[in-house]
């Protein structure tokens, strides 16, 4: 365990990523058996996201040192979550599962713990707060020496990144979604917190990190974070702009009905129809 930070945790994470890859493929096959297609672009996002996450934990980014650590952290916490969220695994699950279980899953999406966790403010606190704890307390040197802590931190970085991305630009079904204004404000706060921490680390590297490595790592965090934030902002704005695929604001004119809507309603009926007594006005 001395050469690589947390050698044992690598295998656990890679195992989880492999399971995620196989589950998604099984979902596509199951959906296809039920007569439902699945967009290749979403699948591409999923596998690209898993590859990025694996590269972050196993590739050169996993080597010792603060700079490779930071590169891995950016890939795992920002790039991978955006790709994974845009792959819409929740929607795929709804299409792939039998009706009864899909309904149960759909109810789980609106359960109160999920609603709290996916609120933008909570997601921002989890993501940004986790980063501040990691780099300003003894957590960073601790994770470099303990594979277990290393794995936990990596899981948190990925998990919080996915939560935040889902809360801001998620495409899976979400009840009680925050308004675009709240989501924009949350994203802004997160971007600021990330940038502020990067600048702070430039002058105050974590314990056990040398000055030059701390400065290079901090600059990488700052500009790499900007790049990831830019992607997130563009996706957010695109969702606001694109009236055909996303919820429309009150100040928009009515739009014409499209074939896409027909397809979408067909899907909803498929999930909702068989249960009598479920007619909503």
């Amino acid at each position, binding site marked *: 365990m001395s050469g690589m930070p947390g050698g044992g945790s690598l295998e656990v994470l890679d195992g989880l990523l492999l399971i995620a890859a196989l589950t998604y493929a099984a979902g596509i096959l199951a959906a296809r058996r039920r007569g439902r297609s699945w967009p290749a672009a979403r699948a591409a996002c999923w596998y690209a996201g898993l590859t990025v996450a694996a590269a972050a934990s196993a590739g050169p980014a996993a080597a010792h040192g603060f700079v490779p650590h930071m590169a891995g952290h950016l890939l795992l916490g920002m790039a991978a979550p955006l790709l994974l969220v845009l792959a819409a695994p929740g929607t795929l699950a709804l299409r792939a599962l039998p009706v009864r279980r899909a309904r149960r899953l759909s109810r789980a999406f609106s359960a109160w713990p999920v609603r709290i966790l996916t609120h933008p403010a909570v997601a921002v606190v989890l993501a940004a707060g986790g980063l501040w704890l990691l780099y300003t307390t003894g957590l960073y040197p601790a994770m470099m020496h303990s594979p277990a802590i290393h794995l936990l931190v990596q899981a948190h970085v990925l998990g919080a990144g996915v939560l935040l991305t889902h809360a801001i630009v998620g495409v899976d079904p979400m009840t009680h979604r925050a308004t675009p204004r709240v989501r924009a404000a949350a994203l*802004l706060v997160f971007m*600021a917190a990330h*940038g*502020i921490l990067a600048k702070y680390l*430039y*002058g105050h590297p974590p314990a056990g990190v040398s000055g030059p490595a701390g400065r290079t790592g901090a600059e990488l965090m700052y500009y790499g974070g900007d790049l990831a934030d*830019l992607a997130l*902002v563009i996706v957010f*704005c695109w969702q606001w702009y694109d009236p055909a695929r996303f919820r429309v604001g009150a100040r928009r004119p009515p739009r014409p009905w499209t074939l896409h809507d027909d397809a979408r309603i067909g899907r909803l009926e498929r999930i909702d129809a068989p249960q009598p007594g479920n007619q909503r006005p």
Partner: protein
Amino acid sequence: MRSRNVLSGVFLGVGVAAFVDETVFHQLLHWHHFYDRSTPAAGLVSDGLFHAFGFFCTVGALFLLADLRRRNVFDRRRWWGGLFAGAGAFQLYDGTVQHKLLRLHEIRYDVDIAPYDWAWNVIAVALLVVGFGLLRRRRRPVT
């Protein structure tokens, strides 16, 4: 939609001013420092918020502009008025509050700073004046 024209302009103005500050003075000229160890916490927070805001503004403004064009309600003068006003407001905030009050960093180091500060803030006020001039002119009914 009149306000959306101004908003789009203001956002892009803030974004462009922040972008010019970042690329020209930080990256190309290296006049500013990335991080000055003496930077106090308030300065760091203000800088971080405005960096993120400028970023968001640039992208948001362009999407707002696309939306205005798609609705055929783009108003050139209000938009440019917003842009100048936004750029001037950010520049003035940067030159007064961030550089001086919060002591974030100076425009340039190891030189007499006064002419730089004057140039910086006079340009800011000039941008503001142009911006508000354009916005005011538009309020009169077109005949």
